C-alpha cells in the first residue's frame, strides 16, 4: 500500500458520498452555485437504490383532495409513534411543496390529472384535518417515481458540471485533530488505486443497510457504508433499532410480495396446512398490521411449523382466487413468481418470509442536515464540515416508523437543505484546512489490513453468517434472551473478522476487496442495530418486543445513540417543539 505522502490528492469545495436522490439533490444545488463539487459513487450513479422507489413523494399540494402541510405533519408525527423530531417534520412537510415543484421544473415527468395538475394518489396513514378522512398526498411518475427523479437529477448535475467519481468506493472519512472533516480516502474500483479527496465540506448520502439481513428488499449495494464511516470517526448512530420489515418477501431472496395479495383474499398457511393467522388475529386475520403478521410467521417457524426442507418459510396462497383474478389484479407478483420461483401463483402457493426494507435510524443530524453528536455543550453539537442526508441519516422525521411516500421526500428535502447549509459554510470557511499524514493513517490502515496474505476465513461465509444472525436475533421477533444471545454471537463474529483473508490481491476490479470493506461496514451497523434494540425495553413503531408489548412514554420518549467505542449506549430527548405551530403530544397510535 502506498505511503500517505505519495497518494494523489484532489481538491473540492464539497465532497458528496453517494449518488442517490439525497446526494444528487445536494450536488445540484451546489454545482448550480458554481461550487466545485465531487460526487463519489461506488456504482454508476443511476444504479443507486433510489431507482427502486416506486410509490411516490408526499406533498400537500391539494390537487386531488383538500390538503395542508400541517395535516401532513400530524400524520408524520403520529406515524413516527411520536419519536420523530417535530421541528424537522415541520420543515419537511412545509418544504415538500416547493420541492415537488422544483423537481417538476427540473423535468421529472409526474403523472397528471385531467386538469393538468400533478396527479396525487392516496397512501396508508394519510388523513385530512388531523386524523379525519383519507387524504391523497403522494405525487407519482407512474410506478417509477424514483427512477424518474434519479435520472432527472443526474442529467441536471451533468449540465451543472458536477464532477463524478463513478465506481469509486469511499473507505473512510479524514479528520484533523480538532475533529473537523477534511475529506475522504476513496478507492478507484477499476484500477485499485487509492485517492485522497480533500474538501471543505463532506456529505454522507450512502443510503441504507438492508444487506445486514438475510432476507431484504434492498439491492446488494445497501451495506451501510456511510453509517459505518460515521461510527469509525467516533460519532453515534441514532435510533438504529427501528427497522421496517414487510411480512411477505420471497423466502430466501427478499423481493416484496405486495400486501395486495392478501388484500385480494390471499392467506398464509404453515406446514400443517393451517391458516395460522386465525390464532394470532381472529378478526383482522391475514390483514392484521405488518408487525403482527411478520411476528406470527416467524413464531410459526420458530415452533417448527415452517415449510420446505429446512422448515424456514410459510406459504402464501392465492391459488383459490382463480387464474383471472391472480393474473389481472396481481401481475407484478405473477411475474416475480414465474421468473424467480418457476411457479404460477394461480396454481401453487408462494414461499414467504418477512423481508427487511427500510432503516428509520442513522447518522444523527439537525434539520439543516448537519451531523450532530454529544459533546461538551450538549447532546447535539454540530460536527464541523460534516453532513448526512437520506436513509443513512436520522434527522429524525420518521421516528419509530416511516409513512409511505415520506422516504423520497426525506432524501429530497434534506439533500437540498444540506446543499443550502454547505453554501453558507463554504462562504464562512473559504480555505482548505491543512491535511497531515497522521490524519490519513486510520483510513490507510483500514485499507492495508485487507492486504494481509495467508489462509483465513472467506468474506462470503462470514457475511452469510452475519445476515443469518441478524435475521434470527434482531429481525421481527425480539425479546431479551434472543437479542442478548445475538449480541454475544455478533461480538464473537466481529473478532473473527481479524482472521478473514482475501484470496485475490490483484488491483483491477478487485470486487472481493470491496466486499471485504463492505463486510466491515455491515458488522458495525449490525452491532449498532442489535445493541440499540436490546436496550429499548418497550414496543414503539417498528420496534416490537414480545416481552415489552406496550409503548412506554415515561421512560422511552427519547432517541437512542449507539457509539462504537465500548459498544456504548447514550440517549437524548426527542425534539417535541415544532418551529411555528403547537406540539402534537403523544396519543395511542390507532388507525
Amino acid at each position, binding site marked *: 500500500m502506498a505511503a500517505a505522502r505519495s497518494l494523489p490528492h484532489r481538491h473540492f469545495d464539497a465532497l458528496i458520498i453517494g449518488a442517490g436522490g439525497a446526494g444528487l439533490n445536494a450536488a445540484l444545488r451546489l454545482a448550480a452555485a458554481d461550487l466545485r463539487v465531487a460526487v463519489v459513487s461506488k456504482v454508476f450513479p443511476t444504479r443507486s437504490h433510489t431507482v427502486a422507489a416506486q410509490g411516490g413523494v408526499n406533498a400537500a399540494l391539494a390537487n386531488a383532495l383538500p390538503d395542508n402541510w400541517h395535516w401532513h405533519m400530524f400524520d408524520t408525527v403520529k406515524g413516527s409513534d411520536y419519536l420523530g423530531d417535530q421541528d424537522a417534520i415541520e420543515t419537511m412537510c412545509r418544504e415538500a411543496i416547493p420541492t415537488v415543484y422544483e423537481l417538476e421544473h427540473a423535468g421529472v415527468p409526474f403523472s397528471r390529472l385531467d386538469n393538468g395538475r400533478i396527479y396525487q394518489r392516496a397512501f396508508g396513514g394519510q388523513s385530512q384535518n388531523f386524523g379525519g378522512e383519507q387524504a391523497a398526498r403522494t405525487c407519482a411518475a407512474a410506478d417509477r417515481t424514483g427512477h424518474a427523479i434519479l435520472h432527472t437529477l443526474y442529467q441536471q448535475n451533468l449540465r451543472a458540471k458536477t464532477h463524478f467519481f463513478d465506481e469509486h468506493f469511499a473507505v473512510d472519512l479524514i479528520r484533523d485533530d480538532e475533529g473537523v472533516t477534511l475529506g475522504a480516502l476513496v478507492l478507484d474500483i477499476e484500477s485499485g488505486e487509492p485517492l485522497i479527496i480533500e474538501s471543505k465540506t463532506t456529505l454522507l448520502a450512502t443510503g441504507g443497510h438492508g444487506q445486514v439481513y438475510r432476507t431484504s428488499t434492498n439491492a446488494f449495494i445497501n451495506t451501510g457504508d456511510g453509517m459505518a464511516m460515521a461510527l469509525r470517526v467516533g460519532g453515534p448512530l441514532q435510533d438504529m433499532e427501528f427497522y421496517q420489515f414487510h411480512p411477505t418477501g420471497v423466502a430466501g*431472496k427478499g423481493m416484496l410480495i405486495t400486501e395486495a395479495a392478501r388484500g385480494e383474499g390471499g392467506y398464509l398457511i404453515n406446514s400443517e396446512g393451517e391458516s395460522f393467522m386465525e390464532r394470532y388475529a381472529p378478526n383482522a386475520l391475514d390483514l392484521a398490521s405488518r408487525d403482527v403478521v411478520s411476528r406470527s410467521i416467524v413464531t410459526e417457524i420458530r415452533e417448527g411449523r415452517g415449510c420446505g426442507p429446512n422448515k424456514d418459510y410459510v406459504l402464501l396462497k392465492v391459488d383459490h382466487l382463480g387464474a383471472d383474478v391472480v393474473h389481472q389484479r396481481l401481475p407484478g407478483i405473477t411475474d416475480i413468481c414465474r421468473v424467480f420461483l418457476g411457479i404460477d401463483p394461480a396454481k401453487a402457493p408462494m414461499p414467504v418470509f418477512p423481508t427487511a426494507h427500510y432503516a428509520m435510524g442513522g447518522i444523527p443530524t439537525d434539520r439543516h442536515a448537519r451531523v450532530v453528536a454529544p459533546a461538551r455543550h450538549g447532546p447535539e453539537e454540530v460536527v464541523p464540515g460534516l453532513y448526512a442526508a437520506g436513509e443513512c441519516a436520522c434527522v429524525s422525521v420518521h421516528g419509530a416508523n416511516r409513512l409511505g411516500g415520506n422516504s423520497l421526500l426525506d432524501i429530497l428535502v434534506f439533500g437540498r437543505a444540506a446543499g443550502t447549509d454547505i453554501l453558507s459554510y463554504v462562504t464562512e470557511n473559504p480555505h482548505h484546512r491543512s491535511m497531515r499524514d497522521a490524519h490519513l493513517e486510520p483510513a490507510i490502515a483500514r485499507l492495508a489490513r485487507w492486504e494481509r496474505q495467508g489462509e483465513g476465513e472467506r468474506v462470503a461465509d462470514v457475511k452469510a453468517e452475519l445476515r443469518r444472525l441478524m435475521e434470527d436475533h434482531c429481525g421481527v421477533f425480539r425479546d431479551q434472551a434472543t437479542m442478548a444471545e445475538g449480541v454475544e454471537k455478533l461480538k464473537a463474529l466481529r473478532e473473527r473478522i481479524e482472521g478473514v483473508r482475501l484470496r485475490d490481491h490483484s488491483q483491477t476490479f478487485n470486487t472481493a476487496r470491496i466486499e471485504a470493506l463492505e463486510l466491515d461496514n455491515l458488522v458495525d451497523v449490525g452491532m449498532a442495530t442489535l445493541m440499540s434494540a436490546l436496550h429499548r425495553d418497550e414496543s414503539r413503531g417498528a420496534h416490537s418486543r414480545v416481552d415489552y408489548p406496550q409503548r412506554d412514554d415515561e421512560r422511552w420518549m427519547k432517541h437512542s445513540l449507539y457509539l462504537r467505542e465500548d459498544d456504548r449506549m447514550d440517549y437524548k430527548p426527542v425534539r417535541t417543539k415544532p418551529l411555528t405551530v403547537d406540539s402534537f403530544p403523544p396519543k395511542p397510535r390507532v388507525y
Partner: protein
Amino acid sequence: MNDRDAREIKRLQWQCRRGMLELDLLLNHFLQHGYAELDSDARQAFERLLGMQDQILQDWLIGQAIPADAELTALIARIRAAIRTAP
C-alpha cells in the same frame, strides 16, 4: 476459465451491481452460471444489456416488455432460465 476470462468476469461483476435487488440476483447468477458458455457475439450482447437503464432492464427481465433487438431477447431468455435451473 483462463486469466483473461477471470479478469473480465470481475469487471462485469461490478457492472451487475444495480439499484434493484431483482437485477442483482438475475445478473449475478447468470454471470456465475451462464456467461462462460456464451460465444463472443452473445458476450457483446451481454455488455450491451448491462449498459441499459435499471428500469428498462427490470421490465425486460421480469417480462413486462420485450426489447426490439432479437439478440437481447434471446439473451434475456437465457438469463431467466439460468436463475431457475442452475445451482
